[in-house]
């Protein structure tokens, strides 16, 4: 299977501390993958590198059929190319309404002049309404997103990710701060999204990972410790030693 995102041999150091150490990772165009690992393993840093926020000291990151070199692109270019990201804590624009937040994320030209001339057409309004309905915010469209509950903000952020129509989705701890029912709904949604695109989920919660029912990559001290099904990795002695053993 050809992969849509190919990360090979990346390393990065912060003040001499190797946060990522010769890490390689790849994911297919319609695949769900979970990344687990103890705190400080480098999961968020890995996402930072893929999305262009942090530059690795060595290694390559390529994306798509045409093997775009992500290391040569800015954060905005990478996002436009089709890599979407959800942060650990919800980061929606609190001073703006749900509609405005979704409009910002909606797939459309990002050129300042085109944005200046942008007018909301019926089709955009329908798309926004559909997205809001999908994430359960249909009756919150006119509210400022700062007024939403923590879980609702997580949902809004997922809605914004969907609006971007990315081909690779990086999701950092999506279930944090969600109720049990919301978690179940999130799992279903992630599984569903992975039918048409690559989805990488970073999560702590084992129950959550189990429900995702997908291949798992275990990170430890900046490199891959084990990879395979959840049962496979949880039986790996090295994994038990560094991660589950503490748990």
């Amino acid at each position, binding site marked *: 299977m050809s992969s849509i995102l190919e990360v090979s041999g990346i390393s990065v150091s912060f003040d001499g501390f190797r946060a990522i150490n010769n890490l390689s990772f790849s994911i297919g165009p319609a695949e769900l993958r979970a990344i687990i690992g103890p705190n400080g393993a480098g999961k968020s840093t890995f996402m930072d590198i893929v*999305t262009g*926020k942090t530059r690795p000291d060595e290694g390559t990151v390529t994306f798509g059929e045409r093997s775009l070199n992500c290391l040569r692109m*800015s*954060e*905005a*270019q990478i*996002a*436009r190319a089709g890599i*979407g*990201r959800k*942060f650990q*804590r*919800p*980061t929606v*624009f*609190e*001073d*703006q309404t749900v509609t*405005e937040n979704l*409009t*910002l*994320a909606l797939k459309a030209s*990002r*050129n*300042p002049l085109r*944005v*200046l001339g*942008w*007018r*909301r057409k*019926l089709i955009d*309004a329908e798309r926004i309404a559909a997205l809001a309905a999908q994430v359960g915010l249909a009756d919150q469209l006119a*509210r*400022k997103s*700062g*007024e*939403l*509950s*923590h879980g609702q*903000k997580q949902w809004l952020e997922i809605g*914004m990710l969907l609006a*971007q129509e990315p081909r690779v989705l990086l999701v950092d701890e999506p279930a944090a*701060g969600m109720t049990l029912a919301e978690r179940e709904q999130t799992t279903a949604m992630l599984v569903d999204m992975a039918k048409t695109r690559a989805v990488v989920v970073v999560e702590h919660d084992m129950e959550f990972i189990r429900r995702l029912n997908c291949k798992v990559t275990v990170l430890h001290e900046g490199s891959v410790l084990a990879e395979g099904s959840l049962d496979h990795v949880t039986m790996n002695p090295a994994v038990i030693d560094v991660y589950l053993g503490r748990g």
Partner: protein
Amino acid sequence: MKQGILARNPSVLIFLALLALFTLIVTFGSEAYGAGFVSTSFVKTLGKTLCLCLAALAMDLIWGYAGILSLGHMAFFALGGYLIGMWLMYARTEEIVVAALAQDALPATAEEIRQGIATQIFGVVGSSDLPLVWSFAYSLPIQLALVILVPGLLALIFGWLAFRARVTGVYLSILTQAMTLALALYLFQNDSGLRGNNGLSGLQNLPGLGDVGQDQLSVWFFWTSALALAGAYIVLSGVVGGKFGSVIRAIRDDEARVRFLGYSVESYKLFIFTLTAVICAIAGVLYYPQAGIINPAELAPIASIYLAVWVAIGGRGRLYGAVIGAAFVSLMSSLFTGGRVPAIDLGILRIDWVDWWQVLLGVVFVLVTLFAPKGIGGLFDLALHRRSPDRKGAPLGPEDGSLQEKEALE
């Protein structure tokens, strides 16, 4: 579903109506066109105030909406003034020189006229050559184009360097101050070609309109300033009201997040920086013919800080707030520094407002920043019962959304 800007945004309509009413009152009170209860010099003060309001609109766009605290925008304002001042001075001097040479027996050559103009303008700095920067001063259309091009290009280059290097926050403010200071120091030099600290003068006389009195001219400029302010208000409310406004407010609140949505934050900042620089330059073009004189002191860094103070006092992040702030503070300022407010004698201390006005303004600025961050504009929220929660300065974190505070009460 289509609605005009005016229907979507009733505050624009109210603003335009008030501005029109104000213009009518001034016109019918002027010495040239009305009862004469508004003196010509006061018409000029009001016209200049409108230009300052225009600059404040630009400041609100870049600071209030995009969150970039530029402390250099009055440099673009002064630059606009210099560029139009060059044409005004050149063309006016040309009239005088031609009239003087007409007394001679032989008709004057073009070279003689040029020489005469140069001597007239640059005698004060001991030179009689026309500097290179005056190459196009003879032509109004070219000089008007330069009014847009020079400040626009300067802003573009400066902004490109600063934003590309991701300079933000206080560092950017300091950098803009440094730019302003450098420009002012350059202009102070006699060999900068702009008459050093003498600056340009006699700008109130419009070439070709020698027989139109200042009483009339002042009203014409007032009208033009009002028109420019109205136009800018309409255009800018369109800019901040749509998706573009949403993007720049998002950049103000969390620029990293905006990048991950695929927007090139730097391009947006550069666009706004350049656009507001040009608006400031246009405001300067209208301001200085009413002031009559411009010198390098006009682009002292403090001028740009004042601009920020006006917007803060008026209420940033809303266009009418900027206009109210600029009008209110600059009119109060000319009242207090004009020596018309009686001094307060405290025995040991005599508060003479000409000197103490700055102190008062500083104190008000601090108080507004601490206790009324929404400025005067916040009063409208009070009147409309639009309340925002008191977060005690805490950021809008995930757990303190405003309605949650309300929910907690209920």
